[in-house]
């Protein structure tokens, strides 16, 4: 049941417990216990809401930053990664194989705010060798959800 439950709430975390129990074919208490277990095991890390800020009046700017760093003795990349991910404006930090080491995604109010973060905070950190900043122009799909278009039901109303 765990995988199926997780797959459902990954897409819709607002479904109520009774309904989850019905569609999974189990008792409500089982769902409650499973969710609690997943939370305490660190499998469920939050119940966020996906917001397309482009449809609001708020201005936001997103950027992806490639960072090359020098691993530190005894701590590898982790120490520096932590110094980076602790910043509020940093959305995600991944250690990446290939031409650079960390991929950071960042959200800010303006281009200037992001530029300031990169020049003042990020690139001045000890161990950061170089950065390359890519601003996001348009989001087509995020977290498995297509943001650009909605599909209409094209089916005939009644078919055999």
């Amino acid at each position, binding site marked *: 049941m765990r995988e*199926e439950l997780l797959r459902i709430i990954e897409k819709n975390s607002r479904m109520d417990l009774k309904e989850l129990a019905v569609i999974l074919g189990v008792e409500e208490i089982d769902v409650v216990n499973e969710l609690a277990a997943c939370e305490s095991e660190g499998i469920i890390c939050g119940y966020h809401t996906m917001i397309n800020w482009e449809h609001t009046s708020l201005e936001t700017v997103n950027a992806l930053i490639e960072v090359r760093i020098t691993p530190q003795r005894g701590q590898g990349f982790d120490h520096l990664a932590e110094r980076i991910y602790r910043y509020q404006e940093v959305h995600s930090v991944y250690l990446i194989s290939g031409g650079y080491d960390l991929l950071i995604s960042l959200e800010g109010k303006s281009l200037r705010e992001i530029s300031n973060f990169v020049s003042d905070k990020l690139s001045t950190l000890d161990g950061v060798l170089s950065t390359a900043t890519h601003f996001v122009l348009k989001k087509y799909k995020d977290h498995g959800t297509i943001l650009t278009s909605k599909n209409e039901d094209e089916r005939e109303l009644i*078919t055999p």
Partner: protein
Amino acid sequence: MRNPLADQVVEIKPSGIRKFFDIVSEMKDAISLGVGEPDFATPWHIRDEGIYSLEKGHTKYTSNAGLMALREEICHYMYRKQGIRYNAATDVLITVGGSEAIDIGMRAMINPGQGEEVLIPQPSYVSYEPCAILAGAKPVIINLKAENEFRLTAQELLDAITDKTKILILPFPNNPTGAIMEKEDLEAIAKVIIEKDIYVMSDEIYGELTYKGEHVSIASLPGMQERTILINGFSKAYAMTGWRMGYACGPTKIIEQMTKIHQFAIMCAPTTGQYAGIEALRNGDEDIKEMRVAYNQRRRYLMHAFKEMGLECFEPFGAFYVFPCIKEFGMTSEEFATRFLEEEKVAAVPGTAFGDSGEGFLRISYAYSLEKLKTAMERMARFVEKLRKEQKGQ
């Protein structure tokens, strides 16, 4: 002027679904639960393969029986899933949907006008009876019973067989009831089939959509492969209804004659769809699994909703239909469906569209999102409540 029409065709009743469709299509804001096709779009990697085949200029006819690579994939699939061995060169024919296979299968096997009988268990898909008639057979209906969960029993089969019986249509997992035939059920009827020396046309188009163990094909039982035309296709399993891709597997001598009709009437199935079909069979197992999980969740939701309404419904384990009983309201299926549509704006298909034995039942499709089903069930609960009040008032 002379009558230009063939009596045999004119006499065929138009599908009961058609009549209902005309009413529904005039209602703009109706929620439909009447659709017999998946709500998912064809998985992208399959669509992409179709596009790619166009880009490469694969826009010519294929061989009549279909691309060899596709027929080989079908043979692998049949062996992988059912343990049945077919020869790709001689035992497989790619058709324009499963529907074509039903039609040409009957035409290849029936001697017109000799009173040969085709047994058709009902409620079932609307094509079998007209195809049997057009092929020149006499359709003989077996009325399946709710108390058997709409499965075909050996006794029912035995009672219907005469010395004119040639083919049994086996439509499981079933549209519209959602019934399945499990291995024991099949073994029981296989004995009768072999003993009475008849053939089976097994329509397994919903074979991938079962929710109680894996589907078993009757062709996998001992002695049955040589007397079974197995019909399947891509429409339901891979959500590919619009591609019109089906196939038939069976004994060489029957497939050979079906291929002859197909060659003259159709030439070959659409080439783009055939390339997409190869991709579906090679890399589509995960897609099927995902869709099956989603259908199963909705199925459970509907069963629960009916239970809460106190509506009688056997638990169906196949396809994407439930078939609740509405006999308690003392109306025909058509009356119920019409009022449900007019008063609550929800369209469900009367069971009678699938044969007289569908009287007293309603086909509800769950090829819809949970949100939509929820709204529809709220309305249905309200409607059922209202009807019960009316009955009490009388």
